């Protein structure tokens, strides 16, 4: 059987085709940050618990710190750098600002991706649903309530967008 020893791994990041040279077990997080310089994707815990490394994989929320890049061969990844060009992002950005949902900001890209994943499935979530949607994300500064309110506000302001 042929070894999977790709000279290059190809996938799509923020709408663009990319090819990277990396061992297939390299963490997607490292490829995004180091090879593609997408440093909006953060490393907090490195073991799936904090959500700072959240990205969308074929539209679904995942933790890029525990995904080997070989697993995403041929798939589509969206990071905060791609998402921030959208109208939806600006609604979330404004709503987070209005609710003071950002302090140091380290967790914010992850929360924004989690918010997008939630709203795309459920455009008018209840508070409980919002808390469930961001349950994989940790924030050391805000105490979460402002983030929950920020997402609620985004869902109202962005009515019809999601």
């Amino acid at each position, binding site marked *: 059987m042929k070894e999977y020893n790709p000279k290059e791994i190809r996938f799509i990041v923020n709408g663009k085709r990319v090819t990277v040279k990396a061992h297939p077990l390299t963490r997607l997080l490292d490829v995004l940050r180091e090879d593609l310089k997408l440093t909006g994707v953060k490393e907090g815990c490195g073991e799936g618990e904090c*959500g700072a490394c959240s990205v969308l994989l074929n539209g679904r929320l995942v933790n890029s710190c525990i995904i080997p890049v070989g697993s995403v061969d041929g798939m589509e990844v969206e990071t905060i750098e791609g998402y921030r060009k959208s109208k939806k992002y600006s609604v979330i950005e404004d709503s987070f600002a209005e609710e003071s949902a950002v302090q140091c900001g380290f967790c914010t890209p992850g929360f924004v991706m989690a918010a997008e994943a939630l709203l795309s499935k459920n455009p008018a979530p209840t508070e409980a649903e919002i808390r469930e949607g961001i*349950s*994989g*994300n940790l924030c050391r500064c805000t105490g979460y309530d402002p983030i929950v309110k920020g997402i609620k506000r985004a869902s109202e302001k962005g009515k019809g967008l999601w």
Partner: protein
Amino acid sequence: MVEAGRAVKMYRPGTFREAVEIRAEYNTIPLAGGTDLMVKYRKPAGVLPFFTRPVEFIGHLNELKYTEKGIEVLRIGAGVNLSEILKNPDIPGSLKEAASQIAAPGIRNMATIGGNICNASPAGDMLPALYCLDASLLLAGKNGLREVLLSDFITGPGKNSLRGDELLKEIYFPLRHYDKIYYRKVGTRMANSLSRLSFTGLVKWNGKIISDIRIALGAVAPVVVRSREIEKEIIGRSSAEVSGITDEILLSYKKLLHPINDQRASAVYREQTALKILKEFLEHRIRL
């Protein structure tokens, strides 16, 4: 650039058949969602995870992502992830309850049911519900398929009887209706915490008589605790009768619990909490 840690050989089969051949030939570590493996073999940032044997990706194989509802049996492909389990109307509530309290959405989007089973962790949260459903597994190896009861497959903490040439293909169980489902998970934090213990109870009533009951406890012994003998003692009784023998039932279960001390909870805590949840179930939760 990521520093070369240990660059093991890699495989990415195109079909499940090929996946089994690769496993048989190279004794690979199959990687489905990777949510257990990537944490287990993790190294510091920028260093390759340290896998000890060749790795084959299987998470992309659509052939393992099916559910098939027959008249009497439900079949779930090993590659179905926990988010898909939550969405699927054919999947029984008891399995959904368990899946809903595992990790958080981002992990559930990757984590597979097959990975949870093969990992065979005493804290594996799909296991008690699957034990209650009398789940069996379909394993594919170089000489064809083999069927095994889940409770026989898991042999100890982190240990299973998967042979070197085999992959888990499917989980299946008889479809039955239960009137009551009681699920409890005790962890440190709502999301992303492994169980200190978990409990699944299923009850079926025939009028005022319990016609079927299933009880399974996770993380209180090296493997899931389920006792058909004790269940038989309960079946055929009314709720008043069960109340009369609750203490005896608790004592019988107590003998089966062999919890460990670890960083998540002490053995004493695990035992006492397990018995309290069991008591709550028997006294208040089994009734319609």
